[in-house]
């Protein structure tokens, strides 16, 4: 009885060893970088964590296809290193000797990658399935690019300032023109401001009491030319 048990046990182990070894068919290598991800809060990788891993893979396979009834015992781990890396295979639940095709495992894991990562507090980079490339999350893109909004705001401000300055300049010029035309009109009508010298209007001086001093009227222009 004991011998039979021993025999079946060794057969099963050998069979398992055959199924799960590095570069075996349908086997995948997993690499964890726990210290990089968690730093001081890193947990040690032991048999319990391995159990959790097997449970997650079994869960993934069940979620992927309702037909399968994968058990934790169907997931085989081997070659666990200090890095923390190991190989795993998923055996068929109905027949213990064959492995589930790699493509199915890959698709299942890809579908539930997020759940697996979260169970171990890791991310796509720190929990790597070496043959399974992860789909990267696209960056969040708003409907209007942000730069256009800022551009629009600045453009409106600048254009408003330009329009304001130009219009103010035009108004100023119009006012100046009006003033100068008013002055010209006054001069034309002859209503010039009377030049007064010492309280006596100059015209009277010229005509009656004043003498024109030749020295000072040497040049014709008494006033600086405009």
């Amino acid at each position, binding site marked *: 009885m004991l011998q039979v048990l021993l025999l079946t046990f060794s057969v099963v182990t050998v069979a398992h060893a055959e199924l799960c070894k590095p570069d075996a068919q349908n086997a995948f290598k997993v*690499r964890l970088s*726990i210290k990089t991800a968690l730093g001081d809060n890193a947990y040690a990788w032991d048999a319990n964590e391995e159990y959790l891993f097997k449970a997650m893979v079994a869960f993934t396979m069940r979620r992927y296809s309702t037909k399968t009834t994968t058990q934790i015992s169907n997931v085989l781990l081997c070659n666990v290193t200090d890095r923390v890396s190991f190989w795993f295979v998923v055996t068929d639940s109905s027949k213990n000797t064959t492995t589930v095709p790699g493509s199915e495992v890959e698709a299942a894991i890809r579908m539930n990658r997020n759940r697996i990562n979260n169970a171990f507090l890791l991310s796509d980079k720190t929990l790597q399935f070496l043959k399974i490339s992860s*789909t*990267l999350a696209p*960056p969040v893109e708003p409907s209007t690019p942000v730069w256009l909004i800022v*551009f629009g705001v600045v453009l409106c401000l600048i254009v408003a300032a330009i329009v304001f300055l*130009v219009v103010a*300049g035009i108004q100023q010029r119009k006012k100046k023109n009006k003033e100068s035309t008013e002055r010209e009109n006054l001069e034309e009508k002859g209503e010039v401001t009377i030049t007064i010298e010492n309280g006596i209007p100059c015209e009277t001086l010229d005509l009656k009491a004043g003498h024109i001093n030749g020295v000072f009227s040497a040049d014709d222009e008494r006033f600086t030319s405009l």
Partner: protein
Amino acid sequence: MEKSRPLWDNPVQFVFACISYAVGLGNVWRFPYLCQMYGGGGFLIPYFIMLIVEGMPLLYMELAVGQRMRQGSIGAWKIISPYLCGVGVASVVVSFFLSMYYNVINAWAFWYLFHSFQDPLPWATCPLNSNRTGYEEECEKTSSTQYFWYRQTLNISPSLEVSGAVQWEQALCLTLAWLVVYLCILRGTESTGKVVYVTASLPYCVLIIYLIRGLTLHGAVNGLIYMFTPKLEQLSNPKTWISAATQIFFSLGLGFGSLIAFASYNEPSNNCERHAIIVSLINSATSIFASIVTFSIYGFKATFNYESCINKVILLLLNAFDLEEGSLTADNLNEMKDYLMATHPQEYAQLLPQLKNCSLEAELDTAVQGTGLAFIVYSEAIKNMEVSQLYSVLYFVMLLMLGIGSMLGNTAAILTPLTDSKVIATRFPKEVISGVVCFINCIIGLIFTMEAGNYWFDIFNDYAATLSLLLIVLVETIAVCYIYGLRRFEKDLHTMIGRKLNWYWKVMWAFASPLLIISLFIFYLTDYILTGTLQYQAWDGTQVKQLFIYLFILIPSRIQPSFLKCPLKAAGIDAYVRAEPSH
């Protein structure tokens, strides 16, 4: 009655305008490069010598000419000698060329500024490729910041011949940049005078913030040590002295006519001697200040890249040999490598090509200048800082202020002669003239927004103004000293400032500066002739390394100042000017 010439509200506005014009992007992106290439701290020796021999005298001369003649460049040189208005025209043309391509930098600064309001910064990560399994190939091969610059900003074509289409985003930013410049010059000195308060002082605030931030960054000290260790053997290299002279010359913006234009709006009794010394000293001090900031940023970036490189090597080794995490650190890396090489020789040999030799020196040695420094290196450093959006916004606002400050000077150089000329000024108001100039420049500037635009930019930047300016300033110096007469000029200055001209200025103007400029000119000519074909660097999107493409082009726009015979009216102006000092 003749309209009185508009004036600066106070001398401070004038000084700020000159500082704002002289302190430009060259101080930030050219001087640190030169410092690095030509001996670190030792470069300061030729730099200061050239400042004293060349920079200050020529700056003083231009300011004095402008203040004395109270006209823009064309008018001022016409007064000095009627045969020399060609010099003024040459200055205006060179300024026109400069303003055509310089505002594109402001457009790029706007682009980056608008993109800084995103989290994360768009140049922090590579975009994903089409099936979302990895990053874009082009981005993977270089880096996300380079990809953002070459692909998403410029969308650069592989060579100059492939012009490509006008990039509408860049065209919009260029239009905005020209609108901003128009807003600042709209009312002449009235508006410019207020704007320069901001454009002159804001960059210093930002530089101080960056200095504090930069010095507290991890690894900044490496950069500073690297920069300031003087390599005095470089002093024997003639290129060092030539670069120092060139840098002083172009950094102060001599020969463009902007300084003459600014000084023409001064009160005649303004002490331009003191202002010349102040402006040149501040310009040089800013260069050194900016290079301290730049080198602390370099140090940070180099240290960051070096540590990333080491980490990559460690990860590679850990994965290949399934070692425990944490067993390989930066300190024991070399011993572990030897150990692994001894214990697993075959696997190690297989791995060897991928193991890069990380070296901090190599990272620091990557000297960059120009747009590469401003837009790639700095943005790479910024993306690794905390609160990167804030630093990004500050940095690009600073670039904008520097660029707009310089643009104000350039446009003043073009507009002052136009508004001085009676023919144009009486027919059109100032706003219309400024508007037309800005509009024409904007339309031509659209060339630089095409896919090959950056190549055109490089060509213009390297070749458009160099020889012409040297010739212009040489003729200016000879004109003032020998044609107008140094004694006459001395008398004019004495009238203006009230002090006798120091013998130092006279010696510099008459002998030292012209000799220096002639030697620079000869050097550049021989350099062009010996190099033969001119070349530019192209970005090959497929191979993603910069290819040197030899390009047969003629040097664009080497303007010979034409010794035009200006109309005889100039003789009348001459008499008027001679009569003036007797007031």
